[in-house]
């Protein structure tokens, strides 16, 4: 009975046998399996009541209606709203992935912060809102006391006319700085072109849904141009046809076989930057073959025929210029498009019942070329497609009420009288309101930064401005940078102080007339949930800051909060009358636009306001088709092929220097008359073409955000291996070009431009034009979280092609480059 080795083994055997007859081994095995399903990082769905919150997406200016599904206070899914006129049910991939922008706390700021590490490293420590207000308020007040309020600058990425943008503008006025600079977008080009040809500063109202021939000059219809939800819906209508109606023909003019080009009926690839010449070549054929709408040209346009000024001088008209200079032979040479294609395209377009020529460059996040836009828009006038269903409508402006003017004090008045740093509005750039490229250049080239404090709102210029890294350089030189971004973007990482905005699902924000929409539209987002971190609506923050600064700055903001300002402005909608706030899919807005009048869909302002607060919208379709009286507000009261405003500016500037000098300053290489009309300008690059024989053009994708809002990390899962592989992005080049450089698919190359170089891999793509290197936009972040940063390169960092004539905005589609195999 002693415990020896043998007995001990017997004891153990007994234990082993016994344990088999208990639940222990079997239960442990099963529980271990279940345990593996419940590791802490396995997502745990929220429990509770389901609900739907209706709102509006403000991630881009497209303004799609969204319905957010929630479980208790947790948002779990974003879908398109079916009761919404812009995007009946549809939504883009960025919008669908928007929850990651809300819940990914490594992507956003969780409260006010101040920088502790090196600039650009993104190392911050939390501070209180009170401290943040004090630091910033003291700095701004200090600059005012010093008498140099113009050393404050604001970069504003909000769309014009949004309440946020109006408040920023107002804040800058009250502080006393003229340096309120907007980030570029296609809206700038539309606004300037519309102003010059039609007299109003609103967006282009393209009646896409009623068109039967859509001639798109570079609009990424399937890549996110305009309001993506609306354009995708229109694409469906064009292809499947309206009930009992024919469908539309789509011709895409673009050098690369983008998704839009691949799926269009016809694809015409001109060399990038020569689209304007192609449009004028089409105009030549239309005029020469007598396919124009003579009635419209005679009654409603100015400058088509040659004309005499009061002094008796004969001016060249559009017709003479086009017939003389833009023959299909010449245009074929400039653009690389075959003559017969030019002729047949012109005939198809002009003979369609409801043709529309639309202009864009990829998505709407970057500017286009002003003369190119004017050339394309002149096609609409030639065929009488203006103020006609299926063409370009000329609606009245959105009737938002103006806020009372700011009364700047003496300091502010002095500051406001100083010249803008970006030279917008000067004789060289008479129609530009903002030129961010000039702004960066001025700071970069000065010995000490003329800007002391930079405020950045809804923008990430360090990443998005196509300037070869100029803005980044400028940022490094500005002593104090303040970011109001909700996200840890590249610009915010350079900031000394961060006062984070709430994300779009946590705050009110208005949507003002989405890009390209044919009717006035206004909507207000409805906070789907209260801010989940210590963030605040920048509208409220700005008012509190102004009040903390006291003096006259505070008195410019007598309102309680952002919402009250929105309410005041919205009163204008009610006063204008005739709006609607409901949408019936059976009677879409593009059908309603043909109605002459519309009854209002509400009885009093309170009803309108309550509707807006609940994620509602306001639109006025009946006003889209107007009579001809007072339609065009140009100096001649007509549609102007020959812009009197350009002529005026040239003339007034010519008082001080010769006309040639004035034109040269504007970047124009043609004569005075031609400068007032749409014409083709070869973008002159100072770089030796022999040194950089190829041309780089960035391109955009629907499933990757390329603007200031980050891409939800989910979207990186939708990227193909020929766009991004591990951490490298790809340049798409034609196999012919690849053969010249002895490059094979997958080779690593350095793309060098005068502004710098990036390393990418080669993707051989038949749809790329020979001689052009296409780089995807949206990659190459150094900010945000581990899923976004360090993936690929940002083509904006090597853009170098000068400024667009007349508008002065960056030319980002024509960078001379060379390829060196690595």
């Amino acid at each position, binding site marked *: *009975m*002693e*415990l*020896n080795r*043998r*007995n*001990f083994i*017997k*004891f*153990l*055997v*007994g*234990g*082993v*046998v*016994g*344990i088999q*007859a*208990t*639940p*222990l081994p079997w*239960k*442990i095995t*099963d*529980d*271990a399996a*279940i*345990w593996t*399903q*419940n590791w802490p990082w396995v997502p*745990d*769905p929220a*429990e509770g*009541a*389901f609900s739907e919150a209706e709102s509006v997406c403000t991630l881009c200016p497209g303004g799609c209606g969204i319905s957010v599904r929630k479980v208790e206070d947790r948002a779990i899914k974003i879908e398109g709203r079916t009761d919404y006129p812009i995007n009946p049910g549809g939504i883009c991939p960025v919008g669908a992935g928007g929850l990651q922008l809300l819940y990914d706390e490594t992507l956003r700021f969780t409260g006010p912060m101040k920088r502790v590490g090196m600039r650009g490293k993104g190392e911050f420590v939390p501070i209180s809102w009170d401290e943040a207000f004090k630091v910033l308020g003291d700095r701004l007040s200090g600059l005012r006391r010093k008498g140099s309020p113009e050393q404050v600058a604001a970069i504003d990425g909000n769309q014009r006319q949004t309440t946020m943008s109006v408040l920023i503008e107002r804040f800058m006025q009250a502080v006393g700085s003229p340096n309120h600079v907007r980030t570029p977008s296609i809206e700038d080009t539309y606004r300037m072109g519309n102003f010059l040809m039609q007299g109003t500063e609103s967006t282009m109202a393209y009646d896409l849904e009623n068109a039967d021939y859509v001639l798109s000059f570079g609009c990424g219809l399937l890549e996110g141009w305009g309001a993506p939800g609306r354009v995708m819906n229109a694409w469906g209508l064009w292809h499947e046809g309206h009930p009992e109606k024919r469908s539309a023909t789509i011709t895409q003019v673009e050098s690369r076989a983008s998704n839009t080009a691949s799926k269009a009926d016809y694809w015409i690839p001109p060399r990038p930057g020569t689209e304007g010449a192609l449009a004028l070549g089409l105009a030549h054929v239309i005029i020469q073959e007598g396919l124009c709408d003579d009635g419209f040209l005679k009654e409603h346009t100015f400058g088509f025929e040659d004309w005499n000024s009061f002094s008796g001088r004969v001016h060249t008209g559009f017709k003479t210029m086009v017939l003389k200079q833009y023959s299909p032979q010449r245009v074929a040479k400039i653009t690389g498009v075959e003559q017969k294609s030019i002729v047949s395209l012109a005939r198809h377009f002009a003979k369609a019942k409801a043709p529309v020529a639309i202009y864009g460059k990829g998505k709407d996040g970057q500017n286009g070329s002003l003369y190119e836009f004017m050339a394309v828009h002149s096609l609409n006038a030639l065929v009488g497609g203006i103020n006609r269903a299926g063409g370009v409508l000329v609606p009245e402006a959105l009737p938002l009420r103006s806020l009372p003017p700011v009364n700047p004090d003496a300091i502010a008045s002095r500051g406001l009288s100083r010249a803008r740093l970006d030279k917008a509005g000067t004789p060289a750039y008479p129609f530009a309101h903002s030129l961010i490229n000039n702004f960066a250049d001025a700071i970069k080239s000065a010995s000490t930064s003329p800007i002391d404090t930079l405020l950045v709102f809804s923008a990430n210029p360090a990443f998005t401005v196509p300037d070869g890294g100029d803005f980044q350089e400028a940022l490094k030189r500005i002593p104090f940078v303040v970011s109001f971004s909700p996200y840890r973007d590249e610009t915010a990482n350079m900031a000394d102080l961060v006062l984070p905005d709430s994300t779009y699902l946590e705050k009110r924000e208005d949507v003002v007339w989405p890009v390209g929409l044919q009717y006035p539209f206004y909507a207000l987002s409805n906070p789907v949930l209260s801010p989940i971190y210590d963030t605040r609506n920048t509208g409220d923050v700005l008012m509190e800051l102004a009040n903390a600064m006291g003096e006259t700055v505070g008195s410019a903001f007598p309102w309680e909060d952002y919402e009250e300002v929105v309410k005041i402005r919205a009163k204008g909608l009610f006063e204008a009358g005739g709006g609607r706030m409901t949408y019936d899919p059976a009677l879409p807005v593009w059908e309603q636009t043909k109605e002459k009048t519309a009854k209002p869909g509400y009885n009093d302002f309170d009803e309108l306001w309550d509707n807006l607060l609940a994620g509602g919208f306001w639109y006025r379709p009946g006003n889209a088709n107007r009579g001809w009286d007072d339609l065009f507000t140009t100096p001649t009261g007509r549609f102007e092929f020959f812009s009197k405003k350009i002529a005026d500016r040239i003339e007034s500037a010519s008082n001080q220097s010769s006309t040639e000098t004035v034109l040269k300053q504007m970047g124009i290489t043609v004569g005075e008359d031609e400068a007032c009309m749409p014409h083709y300008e070869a973008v002159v690059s100072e770089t030796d073409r022999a040194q950089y024989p190829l041309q780089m053009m960035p391109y955009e994708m629907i499933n990757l955000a390329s603007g200031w809002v980050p891409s939800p990390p989910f979207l990186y899962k939708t990227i193909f291996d020929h766009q991004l592989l591990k951490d490298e992005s790809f340049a798409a080049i034609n196999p012919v070009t690849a053969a010249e450089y002895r490059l094979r698919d997958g080779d690593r190359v350095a793309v060098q431009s005068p502004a710098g170089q990036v390393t990418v891999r080669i993707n051989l793509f038949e749809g790329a034009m020979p001689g052009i290197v296409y780089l995807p936009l949206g990659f190459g972040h150094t900010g945000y979280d581990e899923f976004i940063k360090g993936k690929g390169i940002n083509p904006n960092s090597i853009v170098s092609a000068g400024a667009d004539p007349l508008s002065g905005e960056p030319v980002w589609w024509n960078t001379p480059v060379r390829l060196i195999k690595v």
Partner: protein
Amino acid sequence: MKNRGDSPDKRGGWLFFLAGLIGALIIGWVIFPMVLYSKQEQPVNFNHALHLNPDIGIEGETQQEQCRFCHRFRDDGTFAGIPKNNTCTMCHDDPEFPITKSPDEKKYLTEYVAEDKEVPWLIYSRQPDCVYFSHIAHVEMGEIGCETCHGDFAENKTLPVYEENRLTGYSRNIWGKRISGLYWDKKPWDRMKMDDCAECHTEHGQEQNNACFVCHK
């Protein structure tokens, strides 16, 4: 040669074997379940019997109606489960004025209602996330009473102790009460594993509902 079979050592050896065997049985049947499950008291001791007393508590023609007064279905048909404060405060709305002298009510009012905090109830019957279970399909379409699966809570003056599996985090009521699977007196609230669901479906002639996707969406 010595006959090893007759040695006292050998006979004694079997006792060691037996000791190991019995020890293992005790560990497996008694100690293991004690170690595996943590015992937790509910934050507030809710008295079902009191609330369901028709004279003083919740009214209702049938017991199910009474149950569903608090454990209600939402408008979209989903089951709200354990009621939240907004249900309780239909009666217990003022922290200053308790309805009874019960210390439990006082605790509820001062710690939760007054603080505007939800009670972190421990839920006996919560299925894993991978299981889709529709109460309304069983209660309305299947006409199964609440007590069939959850037992007669109506009689309970105190809430049972909640036992949680330390390894899986699931309640013991899901799987653990009938740990051997050999009990003759089977109660649905002892064990709610997939086999139990399937067995009941089959008994009620609902074999089609044993298909995977019915519960695992």
